[in-house]
């Protein structure tokens, strides 16, 4: 789709965009704003999925995360915080510790990625349609030994149950008047 060098460049650009929006998500004070930034971050991630030839996942990402979950979050924010104006300030030491723990994942990255030379030997080797709707659907619903039909059913059950649970939890109890 892209020339190789250009593709790399584009990847870096999108990565930078993802990281920036993610950072913005975390750093802005207003919760509503961070939810909006989260949508951008998810969309940017979806673009990276597209670059990894996982079109169906990218679409799901956009539809479920950006279109579903984050909208849900925004609804919640609006329900509770009146346009998210309640911002809580945090103290410097806590920010510092949080930053330290977050940065230490870079240390993990150093240890597990840069010192692990076997990672360099990986090249794009998946078939191009590995994440197409067709192949995913076949694998998901297959009853062969490599199928995921039981997991699929379970996920469906969990989704169903959790939606009912969410409704019952969030419902106004009659006693509370």
């Amino acid at each position, binding site marked *: 789709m892209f020339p190789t060098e250009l593709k790399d460049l584009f990847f870096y650009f999108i990565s930078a965009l993802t990281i920036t929006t993610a950072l913005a998500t975390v750093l802005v004070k207003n919760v509503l704003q961070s939810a909006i930034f989260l949508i951008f971050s998810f969309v940017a991630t979806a673009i990276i999925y597209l670059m990894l030839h996982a079109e169906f996942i990218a679409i799901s990402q956009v539809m479920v995360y950006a279109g579903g979950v984050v909208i849900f979050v925004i609804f919640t924010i609006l329900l509770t915080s009146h346009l998210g104006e309640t911002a809580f300030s945090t103290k410097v030491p*806590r920010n510092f510790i949080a930053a330290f*723990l977050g940065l230490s*994942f870079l*240390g*993990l990255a150093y*240890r*597990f990625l840069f010192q692990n030379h076997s990672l360099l030997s990986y090249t794009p080797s998946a078939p191009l349609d590995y994440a197409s709707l067709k192949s995913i659907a076949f694998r998901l619903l297959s009853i062969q030994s490599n199928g995921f039909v039981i997991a699929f059913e379970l996920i469906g059950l969990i989704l169903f149950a959790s939606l009912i649970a969410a409704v019952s939890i969030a419902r106004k109890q009659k006693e509370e008047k």
Partner: protein
Amino acid sequence: MNNIILMSYLSLFLPFLAFLINALLFHSSRKKHAAYVSIVLSGFGFLSALYIAVFYFQSGIAPGKLILWEHLFLKFTDSLHAHFAFLLDPLSIMMVVVVSFISFVVNLYSLTYMKDDPSFSRFFTFLSLFSFSMLGLVVASNLFQMFFFWELVGISSYLLIGFWYQKPSAVKASKQAFVLTRFADSFFLLGIVLISYIASTFSFETLNSLSLSHFSGSINLGFISISKLQGLFLSSILIFIGGWGKSAMFPMHIWLPNAMEGPTPVSSIIHSATMVVAGVYLVARLFPFFALFPSTLHLIMVLGIITAVFAAVIAITQKDIKRILAFSTLSQLGYMLFALGVTSVVLQNESFIHPLGYSASIFHIFTHAFFKCMLFLIAGSLIHAVHSNSLEAMGGLKNKMPWTYAAAIIGVLAISGLPPFSGFFSKDEILIAAFQSEHFIVFALALVTSALTAFYMFRFFFLAFHGKPRSNSTANVKESFGLSFPILLLAIPSFLGGYAFKKLLFQYYGPGSNNLNVFEKSMQGDWIPFASSFIVLVSIFLAWYFYARPYAKIQKSLDSSNRPRFYKWIYHQFYFDEIYDALVQQFLFKGIAQTIRFFEDYIIGGLLKLFLFVIQKLGSLVRELQSGWTPFYLGLMIFGVLMWSLIAKLPI
């Protein structure tokens, strides 16, 4: 035979039954009941003991040993068992009869003597327990049972001496008696452990027939290795130390005079035939075993004669009548012990046993029990009448207490040893034994002691009964029949006991072992009874001269202020109480106890406090962790994941 076994159970357990009934049913209100229970049951106990004695001497078993019944008590190893048994032999049956008789008489006496005491029933409870433990001690067939009842005697005597626990002096005296005898008993227990380890038996019969040639090799005591013979010798000394403390031999004697703080019937029963002769009884019981070690017998002899002279000297100066009798008891115990000791004769590097001393000692236990018990009861009557212990408050009681006076004559003559009173026979046997075994120094000291004994006893007698009343309280004294009757009961054996028992003595009371190297006597000593009687008469005359002649200066002789220093030394019993006090105060309390206290307070306590501090800090740390603050939990979780992935070896 079944009869006898039943009787033996009765004679041993009737006092125990009285103890149980009194302790469980009559411990508080119903006053007289407790006394009646004790008197009736101890009376029946005495009768059954008498029945056993008559049967034993008539059936022809005597002087053989008989174990009437035996129950397994404790199994230490496969071969070492402790039994609970009733041993019947001349020595034990004599003791059983004497102890149950004395116990009966003292119970009877206490009915009147203690009648105004608020803890009337408690007294009889303890008295019955004491009788039971003493009976259990004398019928023991093995060292373990003996030790068991030995300790029971110790605890019940502690309870009795400290009966008037409101009095600090009584509490102090009971503690002292308890601690001192326990100190000695710890050695006794060590001796038992050692001997049961070496000879692997507790039984007296086996121990008394030990043959030294069977013991070779050595044993390891942990820090030192000694040969088995040395071990046996050591255990004989250790066992004797138990008797040393119990019989209050010098210098562990101080608990005995102080034990006079108890009620007088208690002094009477403890110091006549029971607790204090337990030490003598122990040596007599194991005599063939002790006879294997002449050195031990020598130690016994030396201790005995020292105590006899020492206590007799102190008794002369005392003014408290109970103390006079207490020191007299000490002196007489010394007599009995050295009589056991003089049996050992060493001639030309060969040791012999002269059995007369053994018989004489047992004889003296027998006679002494009656007259000393009686004298204590007389003293109790005097105290009851005059309300004072001191001779200074008495005098002239002859006409007011005629029965007591008559009994007192018998008592003092018996203890002084004039014929035909009981003390004469036993004392003479002891003197003859000392003379025949050629221990002449001991013999001379014993003669001196007998003179001193006559002197202080008649001093007591004259000052209490003769002369003019020296205080107002003696004026309206009445004799109480409840007190005089038991005294008169005891007067009979005090008077006739010696003559009656002497026949039995030579027939049955030998050391009872055939592997002894018996000493053939070379000297007769027929003159000794005359000499000793003469000396006693001179002593009595001197006592009369000082304290009862028409113009005797009694006030002056009772005044102890203008006396030479030596007299004061004696009067204060050579300051042994003070020495013990100083030793205990300075050495035990200030030296050892304070060091240990320091260790306890600062080192052990400090360690504990340190642990406490650390644990508290740890606890509060953990408590702080459980703050309920979710970000903290999350942070810790992430930190944990990081640590896990950084430290753990992941399969990459």
